[in-house]
């Protein structure tokens, strides 16, 4: 019933906006705007450049010859903006007169900053990163290919204020401590579609091939007013590439090995540990149809006991421009991750030995994930844009015990499993009120169906309605105000509703200077796993807690962004976040049960404040690039009790990332450095079952890259953890020793 009402509301919304738009518009002759975009220095076409008519919903991308066409333009005066990664943005003002075709020529200059581009995550429509009211970092595709990034979470390590832990858990500005990825406080999107597993609200990173990602947008701060649950700490949006004109093939293969441990006492096997993988991408873009098939296979022996993995993933994207104003898209994929299950070490004397496996056994795990995201985008007229998205995601997880001395995992019974199906959809309408104002509104429906040994048979349904209004005042000040109402019903629990609001300002002071201010609210509905879990894992009995409430957050941020000489930018943000009812696993005294009993509970009230600074320079057409990111986090636990005022658990106070690249015509050198200060506190309950969890050190990691680049191939040598520094990637989890990787890329 609730679904029906939601759909009816959506339809009314669309119809009223469409009708409201049509009434005042006169029927006049409409003309196209055509043009060509070339590189200023060489005159070669810029393929895939983004062409937007500011103040409207209209736009296009350039083809293989750099040409574009935007049909059906109502006579008026417009500003046309062209942007492309690696080039300086350019704008032209044109007056469209009835019966007259406009033909524009853009000559883009190179050397624009790599991280300075067009983003979509901040407001659900395309805009310059300089115009948004929140902190947002871009990870360009180049960062992934140069570092042989095989899992998207690895790419986020170099984003200021972001930290990734073993198991794929992301934390932005200290929003999360350490919970093995369960109940992520960062929402992850794939092309704007939520990509979270319905049972644990974690991310199956292994499903997404990394070789054809256009960019990753990392929005910081509470974003629930646009994106709903989980967007408490921020939003990560992974955007795949649009295939270039023609047919192309890309093959990437790599092989590498792990060094032996630094200390001979830690040597746990005589075997050599290695990893290898191959990715193949086929893309075609002919006429109005574009397809991309991307597959990836990789194996690793792991460097720890029972840490081997075999990963396969496949993703297909299909784009079809049915007409100049209607486009169909389909993104579908499948991923499988088979292997061991290493959660924490045995102890500091045996850090590579598995401490989380049962006595005499090893846990073998198989994870599978299938997803399908169809969508249709319809530019109804130059003011009204409609996007309808569907989503289907099925994730399965089966864990079996294998006797260490004998037997085969396949012959053992599954002792832990979860099968989750997520179905849903979203309708979004963007309405351009005038040249300076835009309204974004929509609704989102989703149902999660969980069948699990440890969670039981559960069903949750969610619906949400959001609206946002952005208005530019005097051409300099951009305001943004929005709200979203989320409703959730969980089987056996009842329903809850959450209202999240946001407000933002962006002031352009000229000369590349932008000030911004944002206030946002966030919340996270407890995951099915947190509410209903009933299992015995890693030595602890996890029991359900049906009384869990949603977590909530409020964030305030003031930011400053300065671009200097088009080759350098500096971004500084000061933030203040409050968290309420954070859910953490807690020891529970149960007199009837022998052993360690843990329940998820709403226990933490917290405040996190700090600042982050990011600086980037790209000199001489990116011949020399430098990036520096520093983040300071001051966290306080404000929960009543003995721990009042102490720092939050598993947070580093200081993080520093430095990256330098020298890119000659046929050679490239790069060096990365990461520093994270020692985490200030660990969870007392972890001490009950994890030995030496209090062993902590700061993180200092240096990585080195060397590449030979040719037109159709590149060969790279990458050395990670050059100094073989022994640090932790998560509590009681030693990072890999030095690794060396040889990577070959071939493009045709």
């Amino acid at each position, binding site marked *: 019933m609730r679904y029906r009402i939601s759909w009816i509301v959506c339809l009314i919304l669309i119809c009223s906006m469409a009708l409201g738009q049509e009434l005042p518009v006169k029927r006049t002759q409409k003309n196209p705007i055509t043009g060509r975009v070339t590189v200023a220095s060489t005159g070669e076409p810029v393929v895939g450049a983004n062409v937007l008519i500011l103040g409207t919903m209209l736009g296009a991308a350039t083809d293989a010859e750099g040409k574009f066409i935007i049909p059906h333009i109502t006579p008026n005066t417009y500003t046309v903006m062209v942007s492309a990664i690696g080039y300086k943005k350019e704008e032209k003002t044109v007056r469209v007169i009835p019966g007259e075709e406009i033909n524009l020529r853009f000559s883009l200059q190179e050397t624009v900053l790599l991280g300075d581009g067009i983003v979509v995550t901040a407001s659900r429509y395309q805009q310059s990163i300089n115009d948004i009211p929140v902190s947002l970092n871009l990870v360009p595709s180049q960062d992934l290919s140069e570092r042989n990034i095989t899992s998207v979470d690895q790419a986020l390590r170099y984003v200021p204020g972001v930290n990734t832990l073993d198991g794929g858990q992301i934390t932005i500005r200290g929003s999360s401590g350490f919970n093995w990825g369960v109940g992520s406080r960062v929402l992850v999107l794939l092309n704007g579609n939520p990509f979270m597993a319905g049972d644990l609200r974690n991310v199956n990173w292994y499903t997404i091939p990394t070789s054809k990602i256009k960019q990753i947008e990392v929005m910081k701060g509470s974003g629930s007013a646009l994106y709903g649950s989980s967007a408490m700490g921020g939003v990560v949006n992974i955007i795949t590439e649009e295939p270039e004109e023609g047919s192309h093939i890309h093959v990437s293969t790599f092989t590498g090995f792990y060094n032996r441990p*630094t*200390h001979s*006492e*830690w040597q746990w096997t005589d075997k050599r540990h290695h990893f290898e993988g191959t990715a193949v991408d086929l893309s075609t873009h002919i006429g109005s149809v574009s397809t991309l098939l991307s597959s990836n296979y990789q194996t690793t022996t792991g460097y720890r006991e029972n840490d081997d993995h075999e990963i396969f993933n496949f993703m297909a994207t299909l784009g079809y421009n049915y007409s100049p104003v209607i486009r169909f898209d389909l993104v579908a994929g499948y991923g499988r991750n088979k292997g061991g299950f290493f959660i924490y070490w045995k*102890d*500091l*004397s045996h*850090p590579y030995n598995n*401490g989380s496996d*049962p*006595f*005499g*056994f090893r846990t073998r795990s198989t994870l599978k994930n299938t997803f399908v995201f169809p969508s249709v985008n319809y530019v109804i007229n130059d003011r009204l844009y409609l996007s309808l998205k569907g989503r289907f995601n099925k994730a399965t997880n089966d864990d079996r015990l294998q006797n260490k001395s004998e037997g085969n995992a396949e012959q053992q019974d599954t002792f832990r499993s979860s099968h989750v199906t997520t179905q849903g959809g979203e309708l979004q309408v963007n309405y351009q009120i005038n040249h300076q104002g835009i309204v974004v509104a929509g609704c989102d429906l989703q149902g999660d169906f969980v069948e699990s040994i440890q969670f039981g048979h559960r069903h949750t349904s969610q619906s949400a309605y959001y609206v946002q209004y952005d208005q530019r005042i005097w051409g300099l000040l951009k305001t943004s105000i929005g709200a979203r109402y989320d409703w959730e019903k969980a089987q056996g629990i009842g329903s809850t509703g959450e209202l999240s609001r946001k407000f933002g300002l962006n002031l352009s002071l000229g000369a590349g200077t932008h000030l911004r201010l944002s206030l946002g609210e966030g919340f996270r509905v407890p995951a099915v796993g947190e509410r209903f879990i009933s299992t*015995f*894992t*890693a*030595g*602890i009995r996890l029991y359900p807690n049906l009384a869990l409430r949603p977590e909530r957050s409020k964030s305030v941020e003031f930011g400053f962004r300065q671009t200097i000489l088009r080759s350098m930018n500096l971004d500084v943000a000061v933030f203040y976040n409050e968290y309420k009812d954070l859910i953490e696993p807690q020891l529970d005294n149960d007199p009837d049960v*022998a*052993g*360690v009993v843990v329940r998820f509970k709403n226990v933490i009230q917290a405040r996190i404040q700090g600042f982050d600074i990011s600086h980037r320079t790209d000199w001489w057409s990116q011949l020399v690039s430098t990036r520096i990111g520093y983040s300071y986090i001051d966290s306080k636990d404000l929960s009543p009790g003995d721990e009042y005022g102490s720092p939050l658990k598993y947070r580093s106070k200081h993080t520093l990332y430095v990256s330098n690249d020298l890119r000659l015509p046929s050679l490239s050198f790069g060096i990365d*450095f990461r520093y994270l200060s020692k985490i200030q506190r660990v969870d007392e309950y972890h*001490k*009950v*079952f*994890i*030995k*030496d969890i209090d*062993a902590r*050190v*700061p993180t*200092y*990691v*240096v990585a080195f890259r060397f590449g030979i680049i040719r037109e159709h191939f590149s060969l790279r040598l990458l050395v990670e953890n*050059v*100094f073989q*520094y*022994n*640090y*932790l990637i998560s509590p009681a989890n*030693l990072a890999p020793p030095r690794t060396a990787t040889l990577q070959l890329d071939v493009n045709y």
Partner: protein
Amino acid sequence: MIKTSVIGLVLSSILLAACNKGLTPPDIQSTRIEFPILPEGGNPVGFWLPDTTRPVDVTLLDEFPVDSIVFQSKLEGVFSLEVTGICSVNATIAFRPLIYNLGQVLELDIAITDTLLGMGPYEIIEDNALYLPVESNVLDFDTLGFTSQMNSLDLITLPAVFTFENTISLRFYSVIHLIRQDRNVARPANFLFTLRKKEGAY
């Protein structure tokens, strides 16, 4: 240029010095443990309760000029060692020596009562010894030898010293006898007593 080079050199030196550290293994201590009697090992995993017929044997390690010394002892509680490597222990143990000499029984007012409480990962060393995360007030119960059969588990303590009136010290060890139980069986509440003579005392 020189300034930049010097700064770069200093920063590189700091970086190299910092990167050269990191986690190191703890000092390795000898894991060879000498028990008064040889534990035979086995599989200690299970849910264990005191053997009601003979919960604890206490054995003296020294000769004394008396006819015999026996110990009253009692034990109640549970010992749970999970297959996952986690254990929980919640038990109380008490000893009181009775000295028999020249037909007289000397009952000492001093007794040892200890609480064994702990929960966390246990470790099996050299197949016949256990490290348990157990806290106790008087005696050490964190390192125990064990002999396990199908339905019984004997825990052997390391030698301990029992001193009374600051004059006499008794060196002894004890063997805790446990039997396997289903988890659902109610825990016995009665105190149990056993008397054990030092072998060869008569």
